[in-house]
Protein backbone atom coordinates (compact mmCIF):
# COMPACT_ATOMS: atom_id res chain seq x y z
CA UNK A 1 0.00 0.00 0.00
CA UNK A 2 1.23 3.50 -0.80
CA UNK A 3 2.37 5.87 1.91
CA UNK A 4 -0.74 7.96 1.30
CA UNK A 5 -2.99 4.89 1.52
CA UNK A 6 -1.37 3.92 4.80
CA UNK A 7 -1.87 7.45 6.13
CA UNK A 8 -5.57 7.12 5.29
CA UNK A 9 -5.76 3.73 7.02
CA UNK A 10 -4.05 5.21 10.06
CA UNK A 11 -6.47 8.13 10.02
CA UNK A 12 -9.48 5.79 9.97
CA UNK A 13 -7.93 3.70 12.75
CA UNK A 14 -7.35 6.82 14.86
CA UNK A 15 -10.98 7.90 14.33
CA UNK A 16 -12.16 4.53 15.59
CA UNK A 17 -9.86 4.78 18.62
CA UNK A 18 -11.00 8.33 19.35
CA UNK A 19 -14.65 7.37 19.63
CA UNK A 20 -13.82 4.35 21.78
CA UNK A 21 -12.28 6.57 24.44
CA UNK A 22 -15.24 8.27 26.09
CA UNK A 23 -13.19 10.65 28.22
CA UNK A 24 -11.16 11.99 25.29
CA UNK A 25 -14.31 12.36 23.23
CA UNK A 26 -15.90 14.24 26.13
CA UNK A 27 -13.03 16.65 26.67
CA UNK A 28 -12.63 17.25 22.97
CA UNK A 29 -16.22 17.78 22.01
CA UNK A 30 -18.58 18.13 24.93
CA UNK A 31 -16.59 20.32 27.31
CA UNK A 32 -15.99 23.24 24.93
CA UNK A 33 -19.62 23.11 23.81
CA UNK A 34 -20.76 23.02 27.43
CA UNK A 35 -18.67 26.12 28.16
CA UNK A 36 -20.10 27.81 25.09
CA UNK A 37 -23.66 27.11 26.18
CA UNK A 38 -23.01 28.15 29.79
CA UNK A 39 -21.23 31.40 29.03
CA UNK A 40 -23.51 32.26 26.12
CA UNK A 41 -26.55 31.70 28.33
CA UNK A 42 -25.25 34.28 30.80
CA UNK A 43 -24.86 36.87 28.05
CA UNK A 44 -27.64 35.71 25.77
CA UNK A 45 -29.39 39.06 25.98
CA UNK A 46 -26.25 40.88 24.82
CA UNK A 47 -25.47 40.23 21.13
CA UNK A 48 -22.14 42.00 21.40
CA UNK A 49 -20.96 39.57 24.04
CA UNK A 50 -22.19 36.62 21.96
CA UNK A 51 -20.08 37.89 19.09
CA UNK A 52 -17.05 37.68 21.38
CA UNK A 53 -17.86 34.26 22.79
CA UNK A 54 -18.53 32.36 19.56
CA UNK A 55 -15.15 33.08 17.91
CA UNK A 56 -13.51 32.81 21.35
CA UNK A 57 -14.81 29.30 22.01
CA UNK A 58 -14.04 28.35 18.40
CA UNK A 59 -10.40 29.35 19.03
CA UNK A 60 -10.36 27.49 22.32
CA UNK A 61 -11.71 24.41 20.54
CA UNK A 62 -8.97 24.55 17.93
CA UNK A 63 -6.41 24.62 20.72
CA UNK A 64 -8.09 21.87 22.76
CA UNK A 65 -8.44 19.47 19.83
CA UNK A 66 -4.88 19.95 18.59
CA UNK A 67 -2.48 21.31 21.22
CA UNK A 68 -3.97 19.62 24.28
CA UNK A 69 -5.08 16.42 22.53
CA UNK A 70 -1.73 15.87 20.78
CA UNK A 71 0.33 16.66 23.88
CA UNK A 72 -1.76 14.05 25.76
CA UNK A 73 -1.82 11.48 22.99
CA UNK A 74 1.83 11.54 22.08
CA UNK A 75 2.87 11.30 25.72
CA UNK A 76 0.58 8.28 26.09
CA UNK A 77 1.72 6.64 22.85
CA UNK A 78 5.37 7.15 23.73
CA UNK A 79 5.04 5.96 27.31
CA UNK A 80 3.04 2.89 26.27
CA UNK A 81 5.62 1.95 23.65
CA UNK A 82 3.09 2.21 20.84
CA UNK A 83 5.27 4.70 18.94
CA UNK A 84 8.18 2.30 19.18
CA UNK A 85 6.04 -0.59 17.96
CA UNK A 86 4.96 1.42 14.93
CA UNK A 87 8.59 2.38 14.33
CA UNK A 88 9.38 -1.34 14.03
CA UNK A 89 6.90 -1.85 11.17
CA UNK A 90 7.13 -0.73 7.53
CA UNK A 91 4.54 2.01 8.15
CA UNK A 92 6.38 5.18 7.03
CA UNK A 93 6.79 7.76 9.80
CA UNK A 94 5.01 10.31 7.65
CA UNK A 95 2.01 8.03 7.11
CA UNK A 96 1.66 7.23 10.78
CA UNK A 97 2.04 10.80 12.01
CA UNK A 98 -0.06 12.07 9.13
CA UNK A 99 -2.94 9.82 10.17
CA UNK A 100 -2.53 10.77 13.80
CA UNK A 101 -2.40 14.51 13.12
CA UNK A 102 -5.16 14.23 10.54
CA UNK A 103 -7.46 12.87 13.18
CA UNK A 104 -6.78 15.89 15.40
CA UNK A 105 -7.38 18.20 12.44
CA UNK A 106 -10.71 16.52 11.74
CA UNK A 107 -11.74 17.08 15.36
CA UNK A 108 -10.79 20.75 15.15
CA UNK A 109 -12.85 21.37 12.01
CA UNK A 110 -15.88 19.48 13.32
CA UNK A 111 -15.66 21.40 16.57
CA UNK A 112 -15.40 24.83 14.92
CA UNK A 113 -18.38 23.86 12.76
CA UNK A 114 -20.38 22.86 15.85
CA UNK A 115 -19.54 26.09 17.67
CA UNK A 116 -20.57 28.21 14.69
CA UNK A 117 -23.76 26.19 14.22
CA UNK A 118 -24.79 26.45 17.88
CA UNK A 119 -23.96 30.16 17.83
CA UNK A 120 -26.23 30.65 14.86
CA UNK A 121 -29.14 28.34 15.53
CA UNK A 122 -29.33 28.66 19.32
CA UNK A 123 -28.11 32.18 20.01
CA UNK A 124 -28.90 33.92 16.73
CA UNK A 125 -25.36 34.94 15.85
CA UNK A 126 -25.12 35.59 12.10
CA UNK A 127 -23.60 32.89 9.91
CA UNK A 128 -19.89 33.46 9.17
CA UNK A 129 -19.22 36.47 6.97
CA UNK A 130 -16.24 34.88 5.26
CA UNK A 131 -16.77 31.07 5.23
CA UNK A 132 -13.76 30.37 2.99
CA UNK A 133 -11.47 32.54 5.08
CA UNK A 134 -12.89 30.77 8.18
CA UNK A 135 -11.69 27.45 6.77
CA UNK A 136 -8.30 28.98 6.01
CA UNK A 137 -7.96 30.53 9.46
CA UNK A 138 -9.01 27.27 11.12
CA UNK A 139 -6.37 25.46 9.05
CA UNK A 140 -3.71 27.94 10.13
CA UNK A 141 -4.76 27.61 13.77
CA UNK A 142 -4.70 23.83 13.50
CA UNK A 143 -1.21 23.88 11.98
CA UNK A 144 0.02 26.26 14.66
CA UNK A 145 -1.44 24.54 17.73
CA UNK A 146 -0.77 21.08 16.30
CA UNK A 147 2.92 21.82 15.79
CA UNK A 148 3.25 23.48 19.18
CA UNK A 149 1.38 20.56 20.80
CA UNK A 150 3.74 17.96 19.30
CA UNK A 151 6.74 20.09 20.35
CA UNK A 152 5.28 20.52 23.84
CA UNK A 153 4.78 16.77 24.23
CA UNK A 154 8.57 16.39 24.18
CA UNK A 155 8.76 18.42 27.40
CA UNK A 156 6.22 16.27 29.27
CA UNK A 157 8.08 13.64 31.32
CA UNK A 158 5.29 11.07 31.64
CA UNK A 159 1.62 10.50 31.01
CA UNK A 160 0.62 11.00 34.65
CA UNK A 161 1.83 14.58 34.53
CA UNK A 162 0.46 15.30 31.03
CA UNK A 163 -2.82 16.89 32.22
CA UNK A 164 -0.94 19.19 34.61
CA UNK A 165 1.50 20.27 31.92
CA UNK A 166 -1.14 20.80 29.25
CA UNK A 167 -3.53 22.67 31.55
CA UNK A 168 -0.74 24.85 32.91
CA UNK A 169 -0.52 26.26 29.40
CA UNK A 170 -4.09 25.91 28.23
CA UNK A 171 -6.03 27.46 31.13
CA UNK A 172 -4.03 30.68 31.58
CA UNK A 173 -3.92 31.11 27.83
CA UNK A 174 -7.69 30.97 27.36
CA UNK A 175 -8.11 33.46 30.21
CA UNK A 176 -5.77 36.06 28.70
CA UNK A 177 -6.68 35.57 25.05
CA UNK A 178 -10.22 36.93 24.93
CA UNK A 179 -12.05 33.62 24.75
CA UNK A 180 -14.94 34.48 27.08
CA UNK A 181 -14.61 38.24 27.20
CA UNK A 182 -12.91 40.90 25.15
CA UNK A 183 -9.18 40.97 25.76
CA UNK A 184 -9.29 44.77 25.64
CA UNK A 185 -10.33 44.89 29.30
CA UNK A 186 -7.14 43.15 30.51
CA UNK A 187 -4.22 44.96 32.23
CA UNK A 188 -1.57 46.06 29.77
CA UNK A 189 1.16 43.71 30.97
CA UNK A 190 -1.13 40.70 30.45
CA UNK A 191 -2.25 42.14 27.13
CA UNK A 192 1.36 42.34 25.96
CA UNK A 193 1.90 38.70 26.90
CA UNK A 194 -1.24 37.67 25.02
CA UNK A 195 -0.02 39.60 21.96
CA UNK A 196 3.09 37.42 21.79
CA UNK A 197 1.20 34.14 22.16
CA UNK A 198 -0.86 32.62 19.34
CA UNK A 199 -4.34 32.08 20.82
CA UNK A 200 -5.42 35.73 20.94
CA UNK A 201 -4.49 36.15 17.29
CA UNK A 202 -6.33 32.97 16.33
CA UNK A 203 -9.42 34.27 18.13
CA UNK A 204 -9.06 37.68 16.41
CA UNK A 205 -8.84 36.06 13.00
CA UNK A 206 -11.83 33.82 13.74
CA UNK A 207 -13.73 36.91 14.87
CA UNK A 208 -12.93 38.64 11.59
CA UNK A 209 -14.14 35.71 9.50
CA UNK A 210 -17.20 34.88 11.61
CA UNK A 211 -18.43 38.25 12.89
CA UNK A 212 -17.00 41.38 11.33
CA UNK A 213 -15.84 40.34 7.87
CA UNK A 214 -13.18 42.32 6.05
CA UNK A 215 -9.47 41.71 5.50
CA UNK A 216 -7.48 39.50 7.87
CA UNK A 217 -4.91 41.13 10.10
CA UNK A 218 -1.49 40.50 8.59
CA UNK A 219 0.07 40.83 12.04
CA UNK A 220 -2.14 38.09 13.48
CA UNK A 221 -1.41 35.78 10.53
CA UNK A 222 2.28 36.54 10.98
CA UNK A 223 2.30 35.60 14.69
CA UNK A 224 0.48 32.32 13.97
CA UNK A 225 2.83 31.54 11.09
CA UNK A 226 5.86 32.23 13.29
CA UNK A 227 4.56 29.90 16.01
CA UNK A 228 3.79 27.28 13.35
CA UNK A 229 7.33 27.48 12.01
CA UNK A 230 8.96 27.41 15.46
CA UNK A 231 6.65 24.63 16.68
CA UNK A 232 7.27 22.52 13.59
CA UNK A 233 11.03 22.91 13.97
CA UNK A 234 10.96 21.84 17.63
CA UNK A 235 8.41 19.07 16.95
CA UNK A 236 10.61 17.50 14.28
CA UNK A 237 13.99 18.26 15.84
CA UNK A 238 13.23 16.64 19.19
CA UNK A 239 10.80 13.92 18.15
CA UNK A 240 11.39 10.68 20.03
CA UNK A 241 9.82 7.33 19.23
CA UNK A 242 10.53 5.95 22.69
Amino acid at each position, binding site marked *: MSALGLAWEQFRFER*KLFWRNPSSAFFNFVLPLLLLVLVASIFSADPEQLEVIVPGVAGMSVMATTFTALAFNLTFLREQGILKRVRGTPIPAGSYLGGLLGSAVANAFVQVGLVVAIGHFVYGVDLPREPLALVGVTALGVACFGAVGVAFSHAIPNFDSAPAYANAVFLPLILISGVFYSADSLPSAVKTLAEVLPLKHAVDLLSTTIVTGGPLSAGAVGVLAAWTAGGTYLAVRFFRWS
Partner: protein
Amino acid sequence: MLGRPAPGLRPFAIEVTGLRKHYGSVEAVQGLSFAVEPGEVYGLLGPNGAGKTTTVEILEGFRRRSGGEVRVLGHDPERRERRLQEKVGIVLQSSGLYPRVTVHEAVEHFAKAYPSPRDPAETIALVGLEDQGDSRVRELSGGQRRRVDLALALVGDPELVFLDEPTTGFDPAARRTAWNAVRRLRELGKTVLLTTHYLEEAQALADRVAIVKNGVIVAEGPPGELGPRSSGYRVSYLSEGRRVELHTDDPTELLHRLTRDALARDERLEGLEVTRPTLEDVYLELTDVDRPAVEGG
Protein backbone atom coordinates in the same frame (compact mmCIF):
# COMPACT_ATOMS: atom_id res chain seq x y z
CA MET B 1 35.39 -18.49 11.82
CA LEU B 2 32.78 -15.92 10.95
CA GLY B 3 34.04 -14.71 7.59
CA ARG B 4 31.76 -13.90 4.72
CA PRO B 5 30.20 -16.89 2.96
CA ALA B 6 32.04 -18.15 -0.09
CA PRO B 7 30.60 -17.03 -3.44
CA GLY B 8 27.65 -19.16 -4.44
CA LEU B 9 26.63 -20.01 -0.90
CA ARG B 10 23.50 -18.53 0.60
CA PRO B 11 24.28 -15.28 2.42
CA PHE B 12 23.79 -15.07 6.14
CA ALA B 13 20.45 -13.76 7.37
CA ILE B 14 22.29 -11.72 9.99
CA GLU B 15 25.95 -10.88 9.99
CA VAL B 16 27.50 -8.87 12.79
CA THR B 17 31.20 -8.05 12.80
CA GLY B 18 32.96 -6.19 15.57
CA LEU B 19 29.78 -4.43 16.73
CA ARG B 20 30.34 -1.71 19.32
CA LYS B 21 27.93 0.58 21.10
CA HIS B 22 28.70 3.03 23.82
CA TYR B 23 26.39 5.34 25.75
CA GLY B 24 28.61 8.17 26.87
CA SER B 25 31.54 6.43 28.51
CA VAL B 26 29.64 3.17 29.11
CA GLU B 27 30.55 0.42 26.66
CA ALA B 28 27.36 -1.63 26.31
CA VAL B 29 28.60 -3.71 23.38
CA GLN B 30 32.33 -4.20 22.98
CA GLY B 31 33.12 -5.85 19.68
CA LEU B 32 30.46 -8.49 19.13
CA SER B 33 30.61 -10.81 16.12
CA PHE B 34 28.23 -13.54 15.05
CA ALA B 35 26.36 -14.75 12.00
CA VAL B 36 22.96 -16.38 11.67
CA GLU B 37 22.09 -18.78 8.85
CA PRO B 38 18.74 -18.49 7.08
CA GLY B 39 16.21 -20.72 8.82
CA GLU B 40 18.24 -20.91 11.99
CA VAL B 41 17.01 -20.15 15.51
CA TYR B 42 19.89 -18.30 17.12
CA GLY B 43 19.89 -17.44 20.81
CA LEU B 44 21.67 -14.61 22.56
CA LEU B 45 21.84 -15.78 26.15
CA GLY B 46 23.11 -13.71 29.01
CA PRO B 47 22.26 -11.98 32.25
CA ASN B 48 20.40 -8.67 32.35
CA GLY B 49 22.66 -5.83 31.27
CA ALA B 50 24.90 -8.04 29.13
CA GLY B 51 24.17 -6.02 26.00
CA LYS B 52 21.65 -8.37 24.35
CA THR B 53 18.85 -5.84 23.92
CA THR B 54 21.22 -3.13 22.72
CA THR B 55 22.52 -5.55 20.10
CA VAL B 56 19.05 -6.60 18.97
CA GLU B 57 17.79 -3.00 18.85
CA ILE B 58 20.70 -2.08 16.59
CA LEU B 59 19.77 -4.99 14.30
CA GLU B 60 16.13 -3.86 14.36
CA GLY B 61 17.10 -0.34 13.34
CA PHE B 62 16.08 1.37 16.58
CA ARG B 63 19.59 2.36 17.62
CA ARG B 64 22.69 3.50 15.80
CA ARG B 65 25.89 1.59 16.35
CA SER B 66 29.10 3.22 17.47
CA GLY B 67 31.27 0.89 15.39
CA GLY B 68 31.45 -2.38 13.48
CA GLU B 69 29.51 -3.83 10.56
CA VAL B 70 25.93 -5.09 10.58
CA ARG B 71 23.97 -6.77 7.78
CA VAL B 72 20.37 -7.88 8.19
CA LEU B 73 19.00 -9.73 5.14
CA GLY B 74 21.69 -7.91 3.17
CA HIS B 75 20.65 -4.45 4.39
CA ASP B 76 22.15 -2.01 6.81
CA PRO B 77 19.33 -1.60 9.38
CA GLU B 78 20.53 1.89 10.31
CA ARG B 79 19.25 3.13 6.95
CA ARG B 80 15.72 2.05 7.92
CA GLU B 81 14.71 0.97 4.42
CA ARG B 82 11.09 0.04 4.05
CA ARG B 83 12.09 -3.02 1.96
CA LEU B 84 13.92 -4.38 4.99
CA GLN B 85 11.18 -3.54 7.48
CA GLU B 86 8.74 -5.48 5.31
CA LYS B 87 10.78 -8.67 5.70
CA VAL B 88 11.34 -8.42 9.45
CA GLY B 89 9.01 -9.07 12.38
CA ILE B 90 9.84 -7.58 15.76
CA VAL B 91 8.74 -8.59 19.24
CA LEU B 92 10.15 -5.92 21.52
CA GLN B 93 10.96 -6.57 25.13
CA SER B 94 8.04 -4.35 26.04
CA SER B 95 5.77 -2.44 23.74
CA GLY B 96 2.28 -1.20 24.18
CA LEU B 97 -0.90 -1.65 22.27
CA TYR B 98 -3.96 0.47 21.89
CA PRO B 99 -6.03 -0.73 24.86
CA ARG B 100 -9.38 -0.22 23.15
CA VAL B 101 -8.91 -2.22 19.96
CA THR B 102 -9.72 -5.88 19.59
CA VAL B 103 -7.02 -8.42 18.80
CA HIS B 104 -8.44 -8.88 15.32
CA GLU B 105 -8.58 -5.14 14.63
CA ALA B 106 -4.97 -4.67 15.71
CA VAL B 107 -3.68 -7.54 13.59
CA GLU B 108 -5.79 -6.47 10.61
CA HIS B 109 -4.57 -2.86 10.90
CA PHE B 110 -0.87 -3.71 10.98
CA ALA B 111 -1.30 -6.28 8.19
CA LYS B 112 -1.99 -3.40 5.80
CA ALA B 113 1.58 -2.16 6.14
CA TYR B 114 3.02 -5.27 4.42
CA PRO B 115 3.10 -6.20 0.74
CA SER B 116 1.99 -9.82 1.20
CA PRO B 117 0.60 -10.27 4.69
CA ARG B 118 -0.67 -13.47 6.24
CA ASP B 119 -4.37 -13.78 6.81
CA PRO B 120 -5.12 -12.00 10.12
CA ALA B 121 -7.43 -14.72 11.45
CA GLU B 122 -4.91 -17.43 10.58
CA THR B 123 -2.13 -15.42 12.26
CA ILE B 124 -4.21 -15.07 15.41
CA ALA B 125 -4.80 -18.83 15.40
CA LEU B 126 -1.09 -19.41 14.88
CA VAL B 127 -0.36 -17.82 18.26
CA GLY B 128 -3.30 -19.60 19.90
CA LEU B 129 -5.57 -16.59 20.41
CA GLU B 130 -8.46 -17.67 18.17
CA ASP B 131 -10.86 -17.48 21.13
CA GLN B 132 -9.73 -13.93 21.99
CA GLY B 133 -9.98 -12.42 18.50
CA ASP B 134 -12.88 -10.16 19.46
CA SER B 135 -11.56 -9.29 22.92
CA ARG B 136 -10.16 -5.85 23.49
CA VAL B 137 -6.48 -5.71 24.30
CA ARG B 138 -7.13 -4.25 27.75
CA GLU B 139 -9.08 -7.40 28.68
CA LEU B 140 -6.19 -9.75 27.93
CA SER B 141 -3.74 -11.24 30.41
CA GLY B 142 -0.04 -10.39 30.19
CA GLY B 143 0.73 -13.66 28.46
CA GLN B 144 -2.06 -13.16 25.95
CA ARG B 145 -0.81 -9.66 25.14
CA ARG B 146 2.62 -11.10 24.53
CA ARG B 147 1.03 -13.46 22.02
CA VAL B 148 -0.61 -10.47 20.33
CA ASP B 149 2.91 -9.03 20.07
CA LEU B 150 3.96 -12.22 18.33
CA ALA B 151 0.93 -12.16 16.02
CA LEU B 152 1.74 -8.57 15.03
CA ALA B 153 5.34 -9.57 14.33
CA LEU B 154 4.18 -12.46 12.13
CA VAL B 155 1.30 -10.89 10.22
CA GLY B 156 3.67 -9.47 7.57
CA ASP B 157 4.94 -13.02 6.89
CA PRO B 158 8.54 -11.99 7.68
CA GLU B 159 11.67 -13.90 6.75
CA LEU B 160 13.33 -12.94 9.99
CA VAL B 161 11.79 -12.59 13.45
CA PHE B 162 13.41 -10.84 16.40
CA LEU B 163 12.22 -12.04 19.80
CA ASP B 164 13.60 -9.97 22.65
CA GLU B 165 12.99 -11.86 25.90
CA PRO B 166 9.67 -13.19 24.65
CA THR B 167 8.68 -15.07 27.81
CA THR B 168 9.98 -12.89 30.65
CA GLY B 169 7.40 -12.92 33.42
CA PHE B 170 5.49 -15.93 32.02
CA ASP B 171 4.25 -18.76 34.16
CA PRO B 172 5.55 -22.19 33.11
CA ALA B 173 2.42 -23.11 31.13
CA ALA B 174 2.45 -19.86 29.17
CA ARG B 175 6.15 -20.34 28.50
CA ARG B 176 5.51 -23.80 26.99
CA THR B 177 2.84 -22.30 24.73
CA ALA B 178 5.22 -19.57 23.60
CA TRP B 179 7.95 -22.11 22.97
CA ASN B 180 5.62 -24.06 20.73
CA ALA B 181 4.92 -20.89 18.79
CA VAL B 182 8.66 -20.36 18.26
CA ARG B 183 9.02 -23.98 17.13
CA ARG B 184 6.26 -23.32 14.61
CA LEU B 185 8.36 -20.42 13.29
CA ARG B 186 11.23 -22.78 12.67
CA GLU B 187 8.87 -25.19 10.88
CA LEU B 188 7.74 -22.27 8.72
CA GLY B 189 11.37 -21.72 7.74
CA LYS B 190 11.75 -18.39 9.52
CA THR B 191 15.06 -17.19 10.80
CA VAL B 192 14.74 -16.29 14.48
CA LEU B 193 17.03 -14.21 16.65
CA LEU B 194 16.05 -14.80 20.25
CA THR B 195 17.40 -13.12 23.35
CA THR B 196 16.76 -14.59 26.74
CA HIS B 197 18.21 -14.78 30.19
CA TYR B 198 16.52 -18.13 30.70
CA LEU B 199 18.97 -20.86 30.05
CA GLU B 200 16.38 -23.57 29.52
CA GLU B 201 14.70 -21.38 26.93
CA ALA B 202 17.88 -21.11 24.87
CA GLN B 203 18.41 -24.83 25.33
CA ALA B 204 14.87 -25.70 24.25
CA LEU B 205 14.63 -23.42 21.23
CA ALA B 206 17.96 -22.39 19.78
CA ASP B 207 19.97 -24.23 17.15
CA ARG B 208 22.97 -22.24 18.28
CA VAL B 209 23.54 -20.14 21.36
CA ALA B 210 25.93 -17.29 22.03
CA ILE B 211 26.54 -16.54 25.68
CA VAL B 212 26.94 -12.78 26.08
CA LYS B 213 28.59 -11.14 29.03
CA ASN B 214 29.59 -7.51 29.43
CA GLY B 215 29.00 -6.82 25.75
CA VAL B 216 31.10 -9.65 24.34
CA ILE B 217 30.38 -13.25 23.34
CA VAL B 218 32.15 -15.57 25.75
CA ALA B 219 30.97 -18.84 24.19
CA GLU B 220 29.10 -19.90 21.08
CA GLY B 221 27.78 -23.16 19.69
CA PRO B 222 24.88 -25.61 19.66
CA PRO B 223 23.51 -25.84 23.20
CA GLY B 224 24.48 -29.51 23.53
CA GLU B 225 28.09 -28.89 22.57
CA LEU B 226 28.75 -25.81 24.65
CA GLY B 227 31.13 -26.68 27.39
CA PRO B 228 34.63 -26.33 28.65
CA ARG B 229 36.99 -28.56 26.73
CA SER B 230 38.73 -29.83 29.86
CA SER B 231 37.02 -31.59 32.76
CA GLY B 232 34.50 -33.21 30.47
CA TYR B 233 32.87 -35.27 33.23
CA ARG B 234 32.00 -34.65 36.82
CA VAL B 235 32.11 -37.58 39.23
CA SER B 236 30.79 -37.04 42.72
CA TYR B 237 29.95 -39.12 45.77
CA LEU B 238 29.29 -38.74 49.47
CA SER B 239 32.10 -39.24 51.90
CA GLU B 240 31.15 -39.00 55.59
CA GLY B 241 28.12 -36.97 54.63
CA ARG B 242 29.96 -34.49 52.48
CA ARG B 243 29.85 -34.45 48.70
CA VAL B 244 33.20 -34.90 47.01
CA GLU B 245 33.41 -33.66 43.42
CA LEU B 246 36.02 -34.72 40.91
CA HIS B 247 36.51 -33.65 37.30
CA THR B 248 37.96 -35.91 34.67
CA ASP B 249 38.21 -36.43 30.94
CA ASP B 250 38.22 -40.21 31.43
CA PRO B 251 35.60 -41.37 33.91
CA THR B 252 36.33 -45.06 33.25
CA GLU B 253 39.72 -44.98 34.89
CA LEU B 254 38.56 -42.73 37.73
CA LEU B 255 35.49 -44.84 38.50
CA HIS B 256 37.54 -47.99 38.46
CA ARG B 257 39.94 -46.51 41.01
CA LEU B 258 37.15 -45.17 43.22
CA THR B 259 35.14 -48.37 43.27
CA ARG B 260 38.23 -50.56 43.75
CA ASP B 261 39.32 -48.46 46.74
CA ALA B 262 35.82 -48.49 48.20
CA LEU B 263 35.55 -52.27 47.83
CA ALA B 264 38.96 -52.67 49.41
CA ARG B 265 37.70 -50.68 52.41
CA ASP B 266 34.49 -52.69 52.32
CA GLU B 267 32.47 -49.49 51.92
CA ARG B 268 29.76 -48.31 49.57
CA LEU B 269 30.13 -45.22 47.41
CA GLU B 270 27.02 -43.40 48.57
CA GLY B 271 25.36 -40.99 46.18
CA LEU B 272 27.66 -41.77 43.28
CA GLU B 273 26.95 -39.61 40.22
CA VAL B 274 28.63 -39.25 36.87
CA THR B 275 27.43 -36.20 34.92
CA ARG B 276 28.38 -34.14 31.93
CA PRO B 277 28.48 -30.44 32.75
CA THR B 278 25.13 -29.05 31.65
CA LEU B 279 24.72 -25.84 29.73
CA GLU B 280 23.72 -24.41 33.07
CA ASP B 281 27.12 -25.22 34.55
CA VAL B 282 28.82 -23.63 31.58
CA TYR B 283 26.56 -20.63 31.72
CA LEU B 284 27.04 -20.06 35.42
CA GLU B 285 30.75 -20.51 35.09
CA LEU B 286 30.96 -18.09 32.17
CA THR B 287 28.69 -15.42 33.56
CA ASP B 288 29.58 -15.61 37.24
CA VAL B 289 30.67 -12.13 38.26
CA ASP B 290 32.98 -13.48 40.95
CA ARG B 291 34.89 -15.75 38.64
CA PRO B 292 36.90 -14.77 35.57
CA ALA B 293 35.32 -15.62 32.23
CA VAL B 294 36.55 -18.84 30.68
CA GLU B 295 37.36 -19.02 27.02
CA GLY B 296 35.06 -21.58 25.49
CA GLY B 297 32.93 -22.55 22.56
